[in-house]
Every structure is written in structure tokens, then in C-alpha cells.
């Protein structure tokens, strides 16, 4: 019997897309992973809509003004706010992931003295700071872009 599995055969993803939302006692970082996915897919969809809208520029002024007037309604304005908020969330969480994956937030090694503190808990202050900055920027954009710009 083979002791190890063939690495070319991937392990089955038993949970599928449901695993993004729930697979037991998820911590805040796991929900940030889900939020990163959702905002990423949302931003990708927005980029394609944005590129299609940009294509109307090729039709000249009338074509451009036509699509822009179709876009000037409160629903689109709210959608633009969601896009900007998604950008803030995706960018800040992406920055946190880069810092963690590159090992910048690991801190100095410590002797394992009880009660043990795992690496996730040691990094948690960074997560809370990032969430506070996210919330502040989302409120700033809401006031500056939506409320003042309305």
C-alpha cells in the first residue's frame, strides 16, 4: 500500500462553496477570507461593466453622454459606493495577507510557556487595526462621495 498519496491528485473539496461561510468554529480571519473572495469577485464583475461602459467612448460624444445619463441615478450611485467600499476592504485585507504571508508580522520567536499563544492571536491586533481603518475609510467615502456629492 502506498504510504503517501499522489500529489498530482488533489484532495477533494468536500465542503465546496459552503466552506467559504461555515465549517465549524471559524475565527475573524476566516470570515475576512470570505469577505476577500466576495469583494474580489464583485470588483472583477465591476471592472468588466466599467470596460464595457468605456467602450461607448468609441461612439463619440452622443454615445458617451447617453450611457452616462443612463448611469446617473441613485441606484448606480449606491452601487459605486459599494464598489469603493469593496476596493477599500480588498486592498487593506490584501495588504494584511501580504504582510502575513511574507512573514513580516510573525514577531520574534518566544519560548513555549503555558498558556500558549498561537500565531493567529499574536497577529490579531493587526486585524483589529485594519478593520478600524476599513470602517473609517468606508465612512469617509460615504460622507465625501455619496452624501456631500449628492
Amino acid at each position, binding site marked *: 500500500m502506498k504510504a503517501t498519496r499522489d500529489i*498530482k*491528485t*488533489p*484532495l*477533494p*473539496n468536500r465542503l*465546496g462553496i459552503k466552506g467559504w461561510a461555515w465549517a465549524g468554529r471559524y475565527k475573524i480571519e476566516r470570515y475576512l477570507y470570505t469577505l476577500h*473572495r466576495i469583494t*474580489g*469577485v464583485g470588483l*472583477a464583475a465591476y*471592472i*468588466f461593466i466599467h*470596460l464595457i461602459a*468605456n*467602450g461607448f*467612448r*468609441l461612439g463619440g*460624444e452622443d454615445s*458617451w*453622454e447617453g450611457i*452616462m445619463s443612463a448611469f446617473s441615478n441613485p441606484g448606480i450611485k449606491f452601487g459605486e459606493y459599494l464598489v*469603493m467600499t469593496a*476596493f477599500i476592504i480588498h*486592498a487593506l485585507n*490584501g*495588504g494584511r495577507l*501580504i504582510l502575513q*504571508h*511574507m512573514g513580516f508580522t510573525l514577531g520574534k520567536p518566544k519560548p513555549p510557556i503555558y498558556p500558549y499563544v498561537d500565531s493567529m492571536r499574536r497577529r490579531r491586533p493587526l486585524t483589529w487595526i485594519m478593520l478600524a481603518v476599513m470602517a473609517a475609510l468606508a465612512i469617509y467615502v460615504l460622507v*465625501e*462621495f455619496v452624501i456631500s456629492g449628492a
Partner: protein
Amino acid sequence: MRETHFKFLQYLTGIGIFFLVGLHLLISHLGSGEPTEWSSVSQRATSAGWLTIYILILVFGIYHVMHGVRGIILEFSFPQSAVKTLNWALVVIGIAIFGYAVYIPINAYIV
């Protein structure tokens, strides 16, 4: 290239997008004036600086999106042959989108 190199490029393009899109949003949409008016759009279209920024956003953005989508799809375990097909399909789709998207600012800059 190894997976780690592709992942590292994902980080680099993400950082690039952050600064370039941030610049685009700050100057175009959060600054004074109406950025979507035809006169404003036409003025930006004549700028080589804006053209460069748009092309860089497209290169970084399309790589970042395609690699991100690949990462999501690959979570749903596929055999190695299907992964190769997926890789090539994403490359072709990415190049096609880039071709369409880059034509718009280049056409506006030339005409």
C-alpha cells in the same frame, strides 16, 4: 514558473493596482469637477500620462483578476489535465480582454 512566482506576482500586481487605482480615484472621482463629462474625458484622452496609467492598470488588473479567479476555481479539486486547460483558457481570455480594453484609450489618444 512555479506557483510561488505566480503568487508573488499576484502580490506585486495587487500593490500596483492599489496605488494606480487610488491615483485614478483621487484625481478623477474625488477631486473637483465632473470627471465623466465629455470635455473632461476628451482632455484626459490626449494625455500620455493617463494613457500609461490606464495601460498599467489593465496589465496589473487583468493578471490579478485572472490569477484570483484561477485560485478560486482550483479550490474545487480538478485533475492536472483540466488545470492545464483552465490555465490556457484564462490566458486566452485575459489577452482578449486586454486587447479590447487597451484599444479604447489608444484609439482615443491617437484620434
